[in-house]
């Protein structure tokens, strides 16, 4: 490190504010520490549990089965071709968002002992939580890809893959921003952890994964304003983008012809998505990035009071 080299030439080292850790940029500069934290978090989360990391998959998998049973079999059988993939693709992103948000919100309270006594950019805790969640998303993507291949009619196209990537971008930026902002706010208002949990329980129902987007369009065809409002949800947009990449591309002509029309499914690539899907996606990406900047601003405003508020 440069500090060690200039150690005996301190006259040329500037005086600095020791409390100024550089925010998110400071976290980026300390990648080694971040790596250790992520590794620790991965190990610590399931320490003392026999099945360990497996729990990270049992939980979403059981949720998937529940949703699939209720919406895919009881309510909407035969309405959406490859409904399982339609659902699971959305769940990958929804889980990524809710987990980043939940774990990020708790992160500073959970690392109280370190936060109170050791000097480090405190943004590092919610960021580490997001990275841990992202790590768990990897195997889910493998499962999704496997399921797509099993259909035998998977025809991925570059535009679709870019769309899915855009969806990931939106969710990562927004999830990180939410985790960052609320990790600090949570120290001041402890009730927030519970409020966040309720909010994240609502998210899966607010996006088109248990039901197709076309159903929303259909139900509110008289009042298109509501559909617009529905699409203003960045997570809904992200879910549509990943479905553009991994669901609609598995639907063959025969599958499309066999599907029922009650939920508004129509054959064709564009009939099942809103107009200007990509433009909307890019706008949402911009909004999410702006939100992350806002989150960092809020965090740095509250940062000074975190160590003392943790005591009480």
């Amino acid at each position, binding site marked *: *490190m440069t*500090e*060690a080299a200039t*150690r*005996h030439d*301190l*006259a040329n*080292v*500037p*005086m*600095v*504010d*020791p*409390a*100024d*850790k550089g925010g998110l940029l400071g976290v980026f500069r*300390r990648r*080694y*520490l971040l790596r*250790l*934290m992520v590794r*620790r978090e991965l*190990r*610590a989360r399931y*320490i*003392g549990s026999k099945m360990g990391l497996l729990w990270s998959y049992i939980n979403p998998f059981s949720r998937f089965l529940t949703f699939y049973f209720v919406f895919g079999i009881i309510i909407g059988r035969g309405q959406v071709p490859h409904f399982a993939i339609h659902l699971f693709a959305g769940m990958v992103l929804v889980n990524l968002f809710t987990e980043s948000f939940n774990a990020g919100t708790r992160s500073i309270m959970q690392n109280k*002992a*370190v936060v*109170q*006594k*050791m*000097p*480090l950019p405190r943004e590092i805790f919610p960021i580490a939580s997001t990275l841990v969640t992202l790590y768990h998303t990897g195997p889910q993507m493998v499962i999704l890809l496997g399921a797509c291949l099993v259909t035998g009619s998977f025809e991925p196209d570059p535009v679709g893959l870019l769309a899915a990537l855009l969806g990931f971008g939106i969710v990562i930026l927004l999830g990180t921003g939410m985790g960052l902002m609320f990790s600090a706010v949570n120290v001041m208002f*402890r009730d927030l952890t519970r409020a966040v949990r309720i909010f994240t329980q609502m998210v899966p129902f607010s996006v088109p994964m248990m039901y197709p987007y076309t159903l929303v369009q259909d139900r509110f065809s008289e009042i298109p304003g509501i559909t617009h409002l529905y699409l203003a949800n960045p997570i809904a947009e992200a879910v549509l983008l990943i479905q553009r990449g991994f669901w609609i591309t598995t639907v063959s002509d025969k599958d499309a012809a066999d599907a029922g029309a009650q939920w508004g499914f129509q054959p064709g690539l564009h009939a099942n998505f809103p107009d200007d899907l990509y433009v909307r996606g890019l706008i949402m990406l911009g909004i999410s990035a702006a939100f992350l900047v806002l989150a960092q601003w809020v965090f740095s405003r509250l*940062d*000074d009071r975190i*160590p*003392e*508020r943790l005591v*009480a």
Partner: protein
Amino acid sequence: MTTSIEVQGVSKEFSRHYQRTLKQVTVAKLRRQETKKTFWALRDVTFTVDQGEAIGLMGLNGSGKSTLLKHIMGVMRPTEGSVRTRGRVSGLIATGAGFHPQMTGRENIYMNAAILGMSEEETNAKFDDIAGFADVGEAMDTPVGNYSSGMFARLGFSVAVHVDCDVFIADEVLAVGDQPFKKKCIKKMEEVRDSGVTLFYVSHAAASVRRMCTRVIVLEKGVVGFDGDVDEGIKFLHYDDDNDEPDAEDEETTDGELGSEV
């Protein structure tokens, strides 16, 4: 001479926030009771430390010593005034701060070293020294939650003292630990001091402050009560009156043993 630490008019206000429910706050407001109470943990603290000085920070319990150290380490930011430091700051505010009880001693060493700003290569290079000084033996690869408080303290001190730093902060390191460990700590800190590192040492033990430090700062209820010569500072606190000191005998033996060794 290069300035190492510059504390300029630093004040820190804490609010005594009780974790109260909305109902309690409303009731208090209706009864026109105070809902917010604040106090100053530090009040207009100003001093400058040159590189290589060894400062003994003294004061009664609750006089703001740890709060001041947190400002110098950069854990807290002052409400008013400014703190500036030069070079890398290392040290420990509480022994074993930030250790994860379920991780092994080895993992915690790497983690703690990284928090204090060491790179992976640096930690690898110094790992044997750190482990040797901590002297926890076989326990290195078991969770630190199972450690005795002495082992815990040794590990924490060992990591902090092996960071190649320019300012070293030690808060009551000798409060825990047995006689041999205390001796080892003092010796190591003397080494650090003699290598030109600025030392900031908090202690209630007059003898070790006398031994280690070149200057004493006394805090009294968050205000600098005294800043200057070591012996005068100790006198200022009335810590020189050995008869009153319950720990006096212990002090003497520590001092004696140290004297014979160094």
